[in-house]
């Protein structure tokens, strides 16, 4: 298996979106998904922290607030490993398009901000399949925060980075945590060739660029729709 440092040779295609909460990545991924389906591709969608086998343990750990930076990192990697072999690789083998809302880069940012060693997290996740395209949604912190507080008034303990002891005020803790995450993402853009999308541009402009890129990669891979277009 090639792992994160080399391109995969599955017939399918893996597209991931990354960015802080409120960067607009999920909206864009939804739009891409509908379009790909309309074009006749078989699309599989997966999101961070959702393995049926592992999710319960993570949730219990969060509720009891017993997760440390190390166990937080390990349990999320366990979750990812399960999803990778069970739900990401098989559709890639079958020639489908897999869309992932957050991928290993989320761990590379969050865990490092929590104080876990940069190289260790990378070693841990070295088995991951390298994405064909990884979009990073870059937005000013204030824009993201405005968007989040519009729809979601309360922040959860780990979501706000309260375990880091940055501030006793969840909103302030969240702000500092996200700001540190943004600078870690900055590092990853070059290290892993992330495609930067300006997440504060009009939604349709962002989507146009994303579709163009997806289309180009799909064509260069010689992938064809499995079904006729639904038009």
């Amino acid at each position, binding site marked *: 298996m090639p792992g994160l440092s080399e391109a995969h040779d599955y017939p399918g295609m893996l597209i991931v979106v990354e960015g802080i909460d409120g960067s607009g990545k999920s909206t864009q991924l939804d739009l891409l998904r509908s379009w790909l389906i309309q074009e006749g591709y078989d699309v599989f969608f997966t999101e961070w922290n959702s393995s049926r*086998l592992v999710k319960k343990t993570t949730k219990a750990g969060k509720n009891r607030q017993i997760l*440390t930076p190390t166990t937080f990192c390990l349990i999320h990697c366990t979750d990812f490993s399960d999803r990778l072999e069970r739900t990401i690789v098989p559709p890639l083998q079958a020639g489908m398009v897999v869309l992932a809302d957050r991928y290993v880069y989320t761990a590379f940012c969050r865990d490092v901000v929590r104080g876990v060693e940069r190289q260790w997290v990378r070693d841990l996740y070295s088995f991951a399949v390298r994405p064909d395209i990884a979009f990073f949604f870059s937005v000013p912190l204030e824009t993201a925060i405005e968007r989040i507080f519009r729809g979601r008034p309360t922040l959860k303990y780990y979501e706000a980075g309260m375990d880091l002891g940055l501030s006793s005020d969840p909103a302030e803790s969240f702000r500092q945590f996200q700001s540190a995450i943004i600078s870690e993402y900055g590092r990853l853009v070059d290290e892993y060739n992330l495609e930067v999308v300006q997440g504060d541009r009009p939604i349709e402009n962002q989507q146009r660029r994303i579709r163009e890129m997806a289309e180009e990669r799909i064509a260069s891979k010689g992938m064809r729709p499995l079904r006729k277009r639904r038009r």
Partner: protein
Amino acid sequence: MKATFLGTGIPSALEADLQGRLIVLEGPDCVGRTTQIRRLKDWLENLGYGVVSTSLCRSELAEAGLSKAKRGNQIGRRTLALFYATDLADRLERQILPALESGFIVLADRYVYTIFARFAVRGIDPGWLRKAYAFALRPHLTLYLETSLEVLAERALMAERLGFWECGMDLSLAPDLYGSFIIYQKRMLQQFAKMTREFGFERVNAQGSILTVHNRLRRKIRGLLDLMQTQERAGTPDALEQASGQAEV
């Protein structure tokens, strides 16, 4: 004594000062580890030491999820290795390290080495496993209960312990339990042998009566405890002064 780790360690524990000691008992299935741990605990407590024992899959965080995942037989090997890592990290941070900092002796029934052996036999890259477990505390003493395959097989048969996992039936090595046990345990013993030098195991002959083996273990542990007392005395400023001033001591 400052904590040392197999690799990069646990961020919060890099500067931990350990008053106690971590003693690991390793060895294949049916070699008698659990019996010996019980006896060692009694012995050490009689000597006045505080003792905590721990074993795989006993963490507050991961025990329930890990046990369930194993039962269903639907978890992949790499995922299982990571789940065990989560389990160990939780025990280290919230059970083992705090106990060691408070001066307890921690007896571990199996440690990372069993995990390394099991997953190496199952085709997981040993290099990756070592990197993944770089957070693990380096034990102060690892006692490896060593025995021959023949003795192991005999003990497993007498104790009616030719179970699915002891026989490595998930590997489809042989159609029958006994045949599979022999091939599987042979591979496990090879892995342990390889790690003996890599990790500096203290080899202990596990053949003979329970009492004989117990006495062999005691001798090894006594060595560690004597060293611990000396280090403790040497660590106090008073002792340092005395040692430099009194040549006859």
